[in-house]
């Protein structure tokens, strides 16, 4: 990472994307102190999360502010039941039993896995495991959720479902979302902002339809296919100004052009 300046407001839904090796995961690891506490290196500059200076804080202290969900839920689940897994963080914090029970229930309900509470994580499908992983960090009631490619091990339908869970947490709880994703087809419609990193710096930053221009394509990010189609048609000379991010937006724009 080189001279990264970024401010994310409370309640935003931000997609962080960019070529592999551009620094996305490195950036995320700084937010909860995994860098420099667990990964050594040279970190300079100031970082504030939820009004707290990250420097000098332990990852455990930061965990109640920043929830971290990894690519592979298997790396995050280890207990013999989903409920115990979701409760683990709270037990570690010494949250009183009654309150912990309530928060665990709430976290499982919010992610739609209440009926799976007694199952062992290894009995769950990939999508259910990822929900359990999200519930585990949600129970800590963080104000920011950082998810590093949480859908990449999931089948497409489970991926869409997980993204909907994340969008609901953003809308209903005003949880700030920082989602690292390559699958822009399925996430773009929920985000208010896309940040593109390239070679360790921030290359583009703005609403999806503005960011998904020619520059984004040249950096090599996987634009939603309807956006890509509009780029191609524009190159053919057709007056399609806005970059659509969903099938509906694309259909409306194409119909508008045809019926003119």
């Amino acid at each position, binding site marked *: 990472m080189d001279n990264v300046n970024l401010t994310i407001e409370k309640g935003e839904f931000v997609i962080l994307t960019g070529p592999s*090796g551009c620094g996305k995961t490195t950036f995320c690891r700084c937010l909860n102190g995994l860098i420099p506490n667990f990964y050594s290196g040279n970190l300079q500059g100031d970082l504030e999360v939820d009004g707290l200076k990250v420097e000098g804080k332990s990852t455990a202290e930061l965990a109640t502010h920043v929830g971290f969900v990894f690519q592979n839920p298997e790396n995050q689940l280890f207990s013999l039941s989903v409920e115990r897994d979701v409760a683990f963080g709270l037990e570690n914090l010494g949250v009183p039993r009654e309150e912990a029970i309530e928060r665990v229930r709430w976290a499982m309900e919010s992610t739609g896995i209440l009926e799976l509470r007694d199952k062992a994580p290894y009995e769950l499908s990939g999508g259910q495991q990822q929900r359990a992983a999200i519930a585990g960090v949600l129970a800590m009631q963080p104000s920011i959720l950082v998810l590093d490619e949480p859908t990449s*091990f999931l089948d497409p339908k489970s991926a869409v479902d997980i993204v909907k869970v994340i969008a609901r947490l953003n809308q209903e709880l005003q949880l700030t979302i920082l989602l690292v994703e390559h699958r822009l087809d399925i996430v773009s419609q929920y985000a208010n902002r896309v940040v593109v990193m390239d070679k360790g710096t921030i290359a583009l930053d703005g609403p999806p339809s503005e960011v998904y221009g020619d520059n984004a394509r040249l950096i090599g990010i996987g634009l939603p*296919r*309807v956006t890509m189609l509009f780029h*191609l048609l524009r190159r*053919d000379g057709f*007056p399609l100004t806005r970059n659509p991010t969903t*099938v509906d937006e694309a*259909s409306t724009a194409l119909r508008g052009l*045809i019926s003119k």
Partner: protein
Amino acid sequence: MISTENVSFHYPSTPEVLHEVNLQIKDGEFVAIMGENGAGKTTLIKMFNGLLKPTQGKVFVDGVDTHERSVAQLSRNVGLIFQNPDHQLFAETVADELSFSLRNFGFKEDIVQRRVTNMLTALDLDRYKDSSPFVLSGGERKRVALAAILVWDPKHVIMDEPTIGQDYLQKDRLRNFIVQLISQGKTVVIVSHDVEFVAECKPRVVLLSRGRIIADGPATEILTDPSVVEQSSLVMPQISSLMANLKELEPPPDIIDAYSAREFLRVKLKAAIGAQPPKR
């Protein structure tokens, strides 16, 4: 040729993961195995280099029953790249990772060096030659794992989720690379959830659901069939959904990627807004 004959499989004391799977993959074919999490895709491809042997039925690689060969023997012809590169990487440098198998197979040192150099270039890894694989990003480690197998030039290349963590340029590179492998007569089998990648490559698609093959055919047919797409937890390619949405334009059913959609819409739009599209 890789073929399975009534292959069923269960791990000790678990229900069946695969049930009477019959599949023939010819030399030079490009096949994508797709299906929901837990459908049995990875179990199936682990049969191809003998890592798993069927509990019932037989698997043949180039006519030889895999029961009669060791994994080491089968691996010379069947290169299997795992989904998680960390299950495979171990060496101190990327270059060592690639040369390890070649030395094991007894290649001469000058050939080892040449092949390693070529492969590093092909997969855009030259600059990491002397780095530890473990300091690289997830997407880069994935490419190292791929390079470490391809470097010994196996006849059949099997990749488990090769596009995970790869950005679009890398996927494009991977697609071109696969095309190149096939033009050399190699068989390429991928397991993938990446509908858009498959829609752009247009391989033969084999859909597994709960351990059974539920559909088998060209990508353009399988990925646009709503009932099998639903049954195997896939979603349609975004462009197919767009075409379904624009059915008043009567698009042909085989448009599943942005490039073929462009060809189709170019004609439709020209007809609608006059003979010539306005030039910018």
